[in-house]
């Protein structure tokens, strides 16, 4: 079975980390864009409407991960986000989950963990989209008197 690549946006102010994680994800067949701050993340999401999952660092100068997450969920409610934390406090990560993040990982993350979470996030997004499509279809059929 051919795996459909996920379209991932990596957001981390650690340029080297974002670069290496992107290379690694690309190596396993994913499509990756990386940016280094919150503004660029939001700008990218506005420009490209085909991103599946955002991997978002929590601690960043300027807009931190939590603020970015709030904005993402406001503007793109269906976007799935995996939070990355270098910090031991799970509180911020849990706060992120409450705000709608799919999950969180502690740096340095285990790649297979990350891969599993990416897969889960993408699945959830697909299911959401599918449900919406079905609802829209039903609505359309009702309007045209097909049902």
């Amino acid at each position, binding site marked *: 079975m051919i795996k459909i690549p996920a379209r991932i946006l990596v957001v981390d102010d*650690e340029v*080297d*980390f974002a670069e*290496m*994680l992107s*290379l*690694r994800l690309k*190596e*396993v067949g994913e499509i990756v864009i990386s940016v280094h701050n919150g503004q660029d993340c939001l700008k990218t999401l506005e420009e490209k409407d085909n991103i599946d999952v955002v991997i978002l660092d929590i601690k960043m100068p300027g807009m931190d991960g939590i603020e970015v997450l709030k904005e993402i969920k406001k503007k793109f409610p269906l976007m799935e986000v995996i939070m990355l934390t*270098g*910090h*031991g*406090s*799970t*509180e911020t990560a849990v706060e992120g989950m409450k705000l709608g993040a799919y999950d969180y990982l*502690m*740096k*340095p*993350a285990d*790649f297979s963990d990350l891969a599993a979470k990416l897969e889960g996030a993408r699945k959830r997004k697909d299911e959401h989209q599918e449900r919406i499509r079905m609802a829209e279809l039903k609505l359309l059929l009702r309007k045209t008197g097909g049902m």
Partner: protein
Amino acid sequence: MENVRILFIDDETAFLDTIIKRMKKRGFDPDRASNGKDGLAILEKKPIDVVVSDIRMPGMDGIEVLCEVKKRYPTTEVILLTGHATSQDGVAGIKEGAFDYLSKPIEFDHLVSKIRQAFDKILRNEEKKGEAKFRVKMEQQMIATKRLASLGTLAAGVAHEINNPLAIINESAGWMKLILEKKELADIPRRADFEMALNKIDNAVNRARIITHQLLGIVRKDNAILSEVNAREFLDEIIQMAGVEIKNKDIEIIKRIDDTLTTVWIDPHQVRQVLINLVTNAVHATAAGGKIFLTLEESGEDILFIIKDTGEGIPRENLEKIFEPFFTTKSPGNGTGLGLFIIRGIIEKLGGKIDVDSRVGVGTSFCITFPKRLKLKTNL
């Protein structure tokens, strides 16, 4: 009888006879000596609080006796008796450290009150010494606590900063491994060397990851989540989770639970972490064929988890250090020295305490105490 230990030294036997008799009537039981040398011999054999010595004596005089006593027994007080109207000798005595002097003929009540004053001074000094010791101990404890607190904050900060470069190393090595798996690179020269080195990087990152995550755990503010846990099942679970090593070493685990304790109110997640860690430590310390006792019992208002092994024991000089961060007797890579430090942190956060008792060659026993009243808190 009064508990002041008194020694009279005087060459006048009649005077000694009288004074000892009167002292006994007052409830004292003083010792006596007729010269300085004999007096010092008594002091050598038994502790004396107050020495009452005549100044003018053949052989060693009172001042010499005083100097010797003060030199050898600094806490003993000396009252000098002068048979002459001159106070010169007495003053000289005070300069040498006598508590006071009395002129003969002495008034008996005056003597008794002087002895009491001297004894009071001894008691006061002892008290002061005790207080000073206590204060020093408290100060040391406070310094240690403060140092640990700031160390925790610093360690967590450092761990956080290290996690980022560690993550870069992790991703870089991981990426290189992925590249090596590509078909077109199947036949590159020295492939095994690359793989070996990349695996070493992987292992080292993992080691560092465990340390930084443990360090971050020190200041983690996770709240306790209490729930009612089946005691028997809970201990079984712990034995099971530490199971592989127990089986490999042929160690027998003996579980004991008070019949009255069917369920306990604890934070199962955190207490489990603590107990598995302690059982694993016990397994490491115990030779093949040894025993580990895992006990859960009630004691008044507390519940006690006791993990006792028949292992090698902890030397006395290490016993105080085992809860300090980074203290380990294991070789590099096998122990961070953070386990017990974190365990104690977790237990204290949960309102409990941990004690250790160990004898080299016999074994070690860790006792964790949690208040039962936690139950009340959660029921409210």
